């Protein structure tokens, strides 16, 4: 393999793995966040607190825990997820799920009362009022997705410990940067860093454009 095709493959692999992680985290996290942000029930604030405190979980700590779980000697060893892209996707999904849930919840809580009351007094039923709150929160929900993706693609611990940085299979941008740096290939590491940052910028810019579209579309 040439360096160029390696770079392309690594970049695509990063996008695929972290994109999938952000997608799965959205599929799980958005509904959970919606429930936590919109429904009032006993123990809700305790649950919100738990997710908030999980926001800062160190990636290496999670990587180590998941290694022990996914190892052939561990409880989920039979799934053979260690050193596979699927394993990294699962790990990164778990890593960014608290971000997804917390940002969603906080956004909804932030716009909740006044918008909900406005919708209600304008004649909306509870369901339509909840929809109004969600519609006002579109920016925050997309922020949750972009923050999740950014954290996933920029993290090293899980990708390294669950993926093993195997060339062509589980090598992603961050593990490549770490490897090339230890190899003394500083320039290459720097190039990979630029790719990583540009990717994050592009995705965030894309979501920003999408935000306006979605908001516009929701009012049609």
């Amino acid at each position, binding site marked *: 393999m040439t360096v160029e095709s390696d770079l392309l493959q690594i970049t*695509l692999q990063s996008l695929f793995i972290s*994109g999938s992680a952000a997608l799965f985290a959205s599929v799980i996290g958005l509904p959970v966040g919606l429930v936590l942000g919109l429904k009032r029930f006993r123990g809700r604030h305790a649950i919100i607190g738990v997710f908030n405190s999980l926001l800062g979980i160190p990636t290496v700590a999670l990587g180590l825990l998941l290694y022990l779980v996914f190892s052939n000697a561990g409880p989920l060893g039979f799934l053979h997820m260690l*050193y596979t892209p699927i394993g990294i996707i699962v790990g990164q999904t778990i890593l960014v799920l608290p971000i997804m849930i917390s940002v969603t919840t906080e956004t909804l809580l932030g716009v909740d009362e006044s918008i909900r009351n406005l919708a209600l007094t304008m004649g909306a039923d509870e369901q339509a009022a909840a929809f109004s709150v969600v519609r006002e929160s579109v920016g925050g929900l997309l922020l949750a997705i972009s923050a999740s993706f950014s954290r996933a693609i920029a993290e090293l611990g899980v990708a390294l410990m669950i993926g093993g940085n*195997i060339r062509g299979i589980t090598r992603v941008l961050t593990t490549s940067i770490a490897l090339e740096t*230890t190899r003394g*290939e500083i320039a290459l590491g720097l190039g990979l860093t630029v790719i990583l940052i540009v990717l994050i910028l592009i995705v965030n810019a894309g979501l920003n454009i999408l935000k306006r579209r979605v908001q516009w579309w929701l009012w049609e």
Partner: protein
Amino acid sequence: MRRESRIIATIAVIAVILSGAAFYLYLSQVEGKETLTISTTTSLYDTGLLDLIKDTYEQRNPNVILAFISAGTGIAITHAKNGDADMILVHSPSQELAFMQEGYGVNRKIFAYNYFAIVGASADVVGINQTDPIEALQAIYTYGHAHNTSLWVSRDDLSGTNSKEIALWTAAGYNYTELKDEFWFISSGLGMGSTLNIADEQSLYTLSDIGTYLKYKADGLITLEQLVAEGQDLLNVYSGIAVNSITVTSIKFALAMDFIKWLVNDTAQALIAAYGVADYGQGLFLPAVNIIKDQAPAQIFEWIRDYSFFDEGGQLYECPPAWRSGDFGLYI
């Protein structure tokens, strides 16, 4: 409305295509192939040797993927014990012995060697240039004690290099654990490259594997000099060990043995001998298989034997018969 839908659809299509391409690339890599997972010491991987070996081996065996997990010798052995690797490539005879004694490793085969080097700033304040490694460490200890200055940086990460360092300090008459409390003794906890960078920045001495050192030196990342190099005490021997399929049933034993067999054949040995010569003026690794087979050159063979052979019934073996499994024609 139509324009907005089109933009959203375009973004979705691009996302799907990208994911699909990545997934397809992954599948095409993996599909119908077997993966041999090899936990390996960083010095073999980070120098790039294993990338070359991977490409060559996979070309000859298109149905096999070599998945190298680069870690220190300690972690490599842990991976193997957990059944997360099918074989290991390491360089720490004492740890290898324990690994095999515990019943986890079989069919050990030494495939390469080189020398560690004590490196330091060209000023060489202690004056260890050209001395014997044991004398050099003693001089560093004495100088460190007499002067209020940082002098030595240790990786302190239970890697093969670190084990070698511990053995050297022990041979010089010091207790490594106690040394770590000395003010002139820095513990980096980092890999070889980073530790070399620290030594370079702060003009410290350190023990380095020759491969990483030569690469960093040739790339102009460090200006450190090899002050004590070669000699029996600095010998560094790399061996491959298959995980014992009786102890850890999930591993791919046949595949591991096939790779070990290939690694010790003449093609691979020539590959190892040639690696780095063009870039660094000297090979990073020296082939060991023929030296052991021919027991020549005699001095090198004796060094390797004394350093890295294991005893069974009063005789020294590269891999004692008790820990051999199956006949792959590896031993004479």
